[in-house]
């Protein structure tokens, strides 16, 4: 018997998986029914998806990417049809019976969360700060070359200047963090709920671009009524518009990944360091 990979749970019992929907490994996605819930699932190869090989696959970036995209694709397809509860990547049962038992056991909890998520979607907002905003002044970086030489300053003067520079940078980075937190609070107030992801370290733009050195200071997700997505997006833009050196990007709407654990946390919980909160 092939193991069963589970993508998502929905309460939309009419949901029919499109015939051409492919999941992990190109397998056909099917419905697993139990009571008032339905899981989108597919069979995976037993040899390739035992604990050891799955762990190994997750450690291979190419395989991880393929699995992540397939998992996300199925969840997105279910989300287009109705309210979806996305499952963490790598939820695998020995057979469909295990999936049905899980659905039966957690029915009340899932139903409550699905009710909370109905008609809502996740909006991603990333905020970047320019190097100038991070340094507190646009000139901070141009001053360095030449260093101790000119200006009649001896070693002590240099050290004092250096100390001032470091203090200024420290203060600026604290100010940046405060600004990011304030933006998150404001966005969360425009939304049903807000969650923070860890800011991404990747370059914000390709090399050579003026924005290549911007640093992401906020990576948030906000649960927004589908009918209010445009309004939220405009509100997010307005929140950052007056801040020199800050810019933002809105992504989505996403299936409500960041809110799958229900309304457990306040709207302003801190950045998450990996699995927290809803884990069990």
């Amino acid at each position, binding site marked *: 018997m092939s193991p069963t990979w*589970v993508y998502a749970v929905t309460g939309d019992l009419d949901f029919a998986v499109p015939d051409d929907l492919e999941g992990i490994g190109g397998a056909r996605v099917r419905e697993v029914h139990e009571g008032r819930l339905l899981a989108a699932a597919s069979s995976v190869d037993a040899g390739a*998806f*035992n*604990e050891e090989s799955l*762990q*190994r696959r*997750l*450690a*291979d*970036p*190419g395989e*991880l*990417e393929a699995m*992540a*995209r397939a998992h*996300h*694709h199925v*969840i997105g397809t279910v*989300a*287009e049809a109705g309210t979806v509860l*996305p*499952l*963490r*990547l*790598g*939820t*695998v*049962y020995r057979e469909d019976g*295990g999936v049905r038992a*899980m659905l039966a056991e957690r029915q009340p909890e899932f139903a409550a969360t699905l009710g909370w998520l109905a008609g809502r*979607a996740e909006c*991603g907002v990333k905020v970047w700060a320019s190097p100038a905003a991070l340094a507190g002044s646009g000139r901070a970086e141009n001053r360095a070359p030449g260093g101790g030489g000119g200006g009649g300053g001896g070693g002590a003067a240099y050290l004092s200047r250096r100390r001032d520079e470091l203090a200024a940078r420290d203060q600026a980075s604290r100010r940046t963090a405060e600004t990011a937190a304030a933006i998150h609070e404001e966005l969360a107030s425009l939304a049903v709920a807000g969650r923070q*992801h*860890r800011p*991404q*370290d*990747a*370059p914000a733009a*390709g*090399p050579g671009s003026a924005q290549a050195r911007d640093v992401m200071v906020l990576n948030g*997700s906000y649960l927004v009524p589908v009918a209010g*997505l*445009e309004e939220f*997006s405009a509100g997010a833009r307005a929140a950052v518009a007056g801040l020199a050196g800050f810019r933002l990007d*809105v*992504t*989505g*709407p*996403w*299936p409500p*990944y*960041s809110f*799958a654990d229900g309304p457990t946390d306040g709207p302003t919980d801190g950045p*998450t*360091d*990996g*699995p927290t909160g*809803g*884990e*069990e």
Partner: protein
Amino acid sequence: MTQPWNPAQAGMTRPPRRGEPASLADILERVLDKGIVIAGDIRVDLLDIELLTIRLRLIVASVDRAREMGIDWWEHDPALSSKARDLEQENRELRDRVGELEGGDQAPDGIPRQRVTSPSDRAR
């Protein structure tokens, strides 16, 4: 699949550019860190996933972009590649790191290197 979800239908003012795939980094942080956690029959060590995502973020958040830029970092990263077995380099880096930590009194960067490399250690 070109977008996280049907933004056109939802009427976003500025959805991701048409045809542009959702950023892999955005997908990874959601499918690995978010989504409801249910203990299936086949247990995946979530600690390893956490370490993996931290590692991914430390190096580059978007494999898409890395590919565009011609970077194949995973080929040289023993913690991420099942192919790479560059223990020598890893050991050298660890020795340097230990020397650094013993020499100066700098605080570690918050993510102890031995933790980060543990998934591959275990795999060996």
